[in-house]
């Protein structure tokens, strides 16, 4: 019991403290590839610190939904993070829910963010919400199919079991079904974290925004919570991608050296995936908004193919 609590606290801290760094590293790497020096990778911490200390401007038209949304988003995202295995094969809160709970906790957060954006009655918020919901409706099935592909092989939707089932089989991730599902999930990751080619996190053009348009009315500590949640969500999705498909680095045995090497390998995996995101963002232009559904349909088809090939080839 104490071990579980300790595990949950440690993983919570890991997510809270490391996720801004991951966002910062992506930003710095992008700047370098664009021949800019860019901000330090620690900039997101400074931004959060600055926002937390600032006052807030709350639109007169805002209802309590606007006030509740940052906290709902923050807590659901963090909770979702505790359902995913990071360093250990077992997730701290795995007895409370499986990968379905994880996906829909994130969905709950998104729902509240979209509500809050509509709540202020600004034109940009409405545009952001409608775009976010369109994309979510398409990304979610692709995400579920990809996750089910792994779940089917493992015989469980508990991400810990899914990871544990694969620990012995180092090369499983090269199976066609796994590769297809991995690609589908990677596309979903780009869409869910608001990355190019779906959304542009660095743009100042309100008319083209998706995620940023939803949070335009937020400021100060509430904005900090939302920005922080976005970083955590990105880390959770990267973790899912890393640990569901390449789980053999996870620590299953206790012992300091095993845990340390598992932690180091976990971070390495995250960095490699983040590097892939950076490459995609640098080499691509943002898609026309009406092309995004096509991209997500591709992800969906990949997910479906992954599932079919699991049935055909038994996922090996």
């Amino acid at each position, binding site marked *: 019991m104490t071990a579980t609590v300790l595990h949950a606290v440690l993983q919570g801290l890991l997510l809270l403290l490391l996720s801004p760094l991951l966002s910062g590293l992506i930003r710095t790497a992008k700047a370098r590839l*664009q021949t*800019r020096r860019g901000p330090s990778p620690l900039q997101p911490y400074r931004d959060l610190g600055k926002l937390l200390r600032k006052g807030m401007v709350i639109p007169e038209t805002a209802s309590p939904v606007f006030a509740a949304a940052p906290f709902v988003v923050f807590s659901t995202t963090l909770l979702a993070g505790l359902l995913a295995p990071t360093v250990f094969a077992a997730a701290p809160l795995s007895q409370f829910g499986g990968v379905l709970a994880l996906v829909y906790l994130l969905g709950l957060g998104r729902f509240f963010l979209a509500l809050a954006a509509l709540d202020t009655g600004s034109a940009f918020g409405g545009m952001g919400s409608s775009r976010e919901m369109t994309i979510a409706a398409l990304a979610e099935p692709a995400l579920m199919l990809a996750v089910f592909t792994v779940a089917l092989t493992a015989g469980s939707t508990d991400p810990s079991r899914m990871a544990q089932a694969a620990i012995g089989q180092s090369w499983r991730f090269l199976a066609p079904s796994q590769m297809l599902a991995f690609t589908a999930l990677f596309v979903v990751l780009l869409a869910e974290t608001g990355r190019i080619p779906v959304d*542009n996190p660095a743009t100042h*053009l*309100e008319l*083209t925004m998706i995620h940023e348009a939803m949070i335009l009315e937020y400021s100060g500590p509430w904005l900090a919570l939302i920005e922080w949640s976005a970083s955590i969500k990105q880390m959770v999705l990267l973790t899912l991608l890393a640990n569901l498909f390449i789980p053999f680095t996870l620590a299953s045995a206790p012992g300091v050296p095993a845990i340390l090497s598992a932690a180091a390998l976990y971070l390495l995996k995250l960095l490699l995936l983040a590097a892939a995101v950076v490459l995609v963002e640098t080499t691509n*232009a*943002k*898609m*026309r908004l009406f092309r995004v559904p096509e991209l997500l349909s591709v992800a969906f088809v990949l997910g479906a193919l992954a599932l079919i090939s699991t049935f055909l080839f038994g996922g090996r």
Partner: protein
Amino acid sequence: MSRPGSAAFDSLMAEVRPLAASACEKTPWEVRAFLPGADDRQEIAAALLDRGCRFASVFAEDRRAQERAYYLYDVVEHRDDHRYLVIRYRVAPEQPRFPSISLQAPAANWMERETQDWFGIEAEGHPNPRRVALHDHWPGVHPLLKDFPIDAVLPPLEGDPHIFRQTIGEGVFYVPVGPVHAGIIEPGHFHFAVAGEPVIYLQLRLFYTHKGVEKRFENLPLTHGVFLAESVSGDTSFGHGLAHCLALEHAAGIEAPPHARIGRVILLELERIYNHAADIGAIATDVGFVIANSHATRLREQMLRLNEELTGSRLLRGLLRPGGLRRPLDAARLAPFLEKLESFEREYRSLVRLIEDSDSTRDRLETTGTLPPAKAKDLGIVGVAGRASGQDLDVRRDHPFDGYQGLQPRVPVFSQGDVLHRMRVRSEEVLESLSLIRAAAAELPEGPSLSPLPEIAPGATALSAVEGWRGEILHWIRNGGNGRLDRCRIKDPSLNNWPAIVEAIQGNIIPDFPVINKSFNLSYSGTDR
């Protein structure tokens, strides 16, 4: 000072009845027709449009004190004549109105409304006579009238600054954007009516940076106007400065010395290059292809530094004087400058290749924001945007000024009219500009850079045209005597081109608006004046 070329206006003047009967005056730069009243304006406009003319500018002048009349001017351009046709209509102060030609020539739309706002002269039969230059909550004042003092203080404005037309339909809602925008751009208000993402109707409201520049020119000493002209639009300081100098030189009947005439070609093309390079990068940014913008920004900076090395001014300011160039271009600096231009060209070509080879970027730009050639012709779209939509116009080739009289610029023209081709016009023009600079530098003669500006007759008028990097710039001046200007009319190409954006956005979705707008990259300051 003879200029070669055919003379379409000579035969045209004889063919059009009211023009044939009018008084006429010819200079190497202009054909002037003086009409006693504006009654025949629509007939003349119809005849001119039939014969392939384009209405480049419409403006007015308050001569009540001297000649007891308002004058209304139509500036008409024809590709087959090096000169411009300037038709002057007398408008009686007792009946301050003139027949509108906006239905026949939509190009005149904004400029007729501007005349209404600034002079209180009514454009009779205008299909959309609402205000354009003054916002709707301005009191009924007409700032360009001579009896409106330049230091007049108005009471605080009250009420709605804009009255918009309604767009009604199921699921239609408005997205107001601006006038203050994110990023460092000038103010302008965009009022979208959208149904979901597709834009149904866009209404523009500009003139937030109206500074009364044309009013400010009045009573300015002749040689001082060039400084004000340089700040009409910050990115076109050389283009506007040059147009202003040329207008004074035409009025005085002189030409700048050969060194200045060729030197001005080099400088005008430098301005074109640095702006086009920046625009290409900005278009890439707006579709999220940031790496291309990094390179474009770097190249622009390289160009600005070259400008500074050659002239001492990054933005080519303070170089012009009526009568030539303030200082000659330094031959010792020219050789290393040309060498650096070579390496600029190499890098520039690789930037264009980077964008053209990016499928995801081209996918965003192709067929986005299409302005069909027919609409471009009706609206009188000029410059980069016009050439991307089949309007084969270029003042440098059709109405050559200064050193361009010996050069034959190659003018890229496309008929597709989308964002991609507005970018391609720019990318090809930069290469042409580079070769123009080399050609000009090769024949740059030694000698003085400045001729003295002789006395200009009081009341003399002159028009000048320059192909700035955005397109056709027109300056029209009247000398007031005692060494001061009486009126200066400035027409930035942006004034012609803003209505094109309303057409180009049709059938597009709202998130594509920024890149469409950027592909035109029109000047707010130059339009608002």
